[in-house]
């Protein structure tokens, strides 16, 4: 059986998630024995055109050209996977206040500028995405888990628990109990609660967990802080998530 062909592409983003893949180091070599990475601009020089068995896409399109390229990649790929919050949720590029955007255009590029950019949306707004590897950046052990699942011929599963599970394992004090905002309870686990362990809140970069009780969390957040702050929390990664 020939090895599955994998391609890794990126649209607008910071490439941090691909760096997570690079940081797999020895594991990447183990992986190379089982798959052919036939196209990866960041990781190698010889890149081949499609079709591909698995295409991993980091970032999200913000011009029509990029959207067209994404659609073509979908046609050329058996399995298409989103890598990281930008691809899965719109991520950082989607933070922008789209109303203010016109003002910025004028200020930065002048009156005559014809805008080409479109609003950052998750990949799923344009094409069918088979699986999302969440995170900003992704957790590289999750990348290994999901690729191992695919190679074993199984359908990968999303984490059915919240960030709180990993937060309790890390022995952190609960922010919400200390009257500090946190989106951990509605957010899918898998990141080992790095932010909370590091003293920051969870902004939900792993996306909403299945069955997230967003309304109930909002009731708690409303007691802790004001609407403006709550909006800020929900605009970090969840601007394009219907809550």
């Amino acid at each position: 059986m020939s090895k599955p062909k994998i391609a890794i592409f990126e649209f607008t983003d910071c490439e941090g998630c691909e760096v997570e893949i690079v940081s797999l180091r020895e594991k990447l070599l183990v992986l190379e024995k089982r798959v052919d990475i036939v196209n990866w601009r960041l990781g190698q020089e010889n890149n081949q055109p499609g079709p591909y068995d698995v295409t991993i896409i980091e970032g999200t399109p913000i011009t029509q050209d990029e959207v067209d390229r994404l659609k073509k990649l979908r046609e050329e790929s058996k399995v298409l996977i989103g890598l990281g919050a930008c691809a899965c949720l719109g991520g950082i590029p989607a933070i922008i206040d789209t109303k203010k955007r016109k003002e910025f255009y004028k200020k930065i590029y002048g009156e005559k500028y014809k805008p080409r950019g479109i609003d950052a949306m998750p990949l799923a707004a344009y094409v069918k995405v088979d699986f999302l590897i969440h995170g900003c950046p992704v957790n590289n052990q999750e990348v290994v888990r999901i690729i191992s699942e695919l190679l074993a011929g199984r359908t990968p599963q999303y984490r059915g628990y919240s960030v709180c599970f990993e937060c309790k394992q890390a022995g952190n004090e609960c922010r919400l109990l200390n009257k500090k905002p946190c989106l951990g309870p509605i957010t899918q686990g898998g990141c080992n609660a790095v932010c909370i362990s590091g003293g920051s809140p969870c902004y939900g970069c792993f996306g909403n967990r299945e069955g997230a009780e967003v309304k109930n969390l909002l009731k708690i957040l409303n007691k802790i802080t004001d609407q403006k702050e709550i909006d800020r929390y929900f605009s970090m990664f969840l601007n394009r998530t219907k809550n």
Partner: protein
Amino acid sequence: MELIIEKKKIKEWLVVLGKDFKVVDTRKKVLPPKQYFFPVKEDLFSFDLKSKKLKTIDQSENILLLISSLNKLEAMTQLDEIMEKPQKDFFYWQKRDKSVLVGIVDESIKVPYGGDLVLEKINQKEYRTWVLNSKGRNLLKDKFFKKVLKPRTINYPSKPNIFKEKLLDSELLAEAVEWSWQSNHKIWNELAEKCLGCGICTYVCPLCHCFSMEDQVSLDNSKCFRCRQWDACTLPRFSQIAGGHNFHKTIKERYYNWYYHKFVRAYRQYGKAQCVACGACKDNCPAGIKIGEVLKEIVKDYKKR
């Protein structure tokens, strides 16, 4: 005759025990003692593709747990019972058999319901020992303990816990909880409007013991692992079966299951509630749900019905 250890000698005594045991102080840990015998996540066995052999993964070690709460000691006795019936949980007992539980309790004790050896504070400087079995007896090193006929004893009363008293009538609790669901008591709607379904109450509960299984194939395809990790009945996948059907579609149903299992099913199966009123779930719930208050309201209305 009482066996007494001076407070200042406890540390030294533990250092000596440290030669035979890995001493773990659980007193400030959020997750309860169960985690050492039923780890949050563990590989149970592996299957090697080449040799076609199954191998169990033995992670047991001689471990000594220091536990400060009587409730948590009691919970361990109850968890042992749960892990024994109807079938022995091999992986739990593999670790549990090699462990000793030492209580260091700062309140006066009538009877300790758990642990192998319990040290009870009797005055500012001294602790009295309760030896519960031979495992506990083996920890007594002469150098650190002395026999005293009538030690000076001060009473350190425990905080009143009305919830604990409620648990004594577990039959009433079982009936009341089941009645509250069948009669559509409004409290379940109210709780469904509050609960985040985060699962924390289950993780911190010294008695919850649910898990899910996950099989994993190693990246190089040489081995497959069966892993079990804690699950919680407030999570949406808990009651999902093959094909995607879910027996508990809403948080209301899921949250009720927590009570149903602890107070109704556990009563039928084991004759008592799976709760020791330790309060850990209440203290750690980000939504501020208080289990004792919930039960109080239910029982009150059940009696009035």
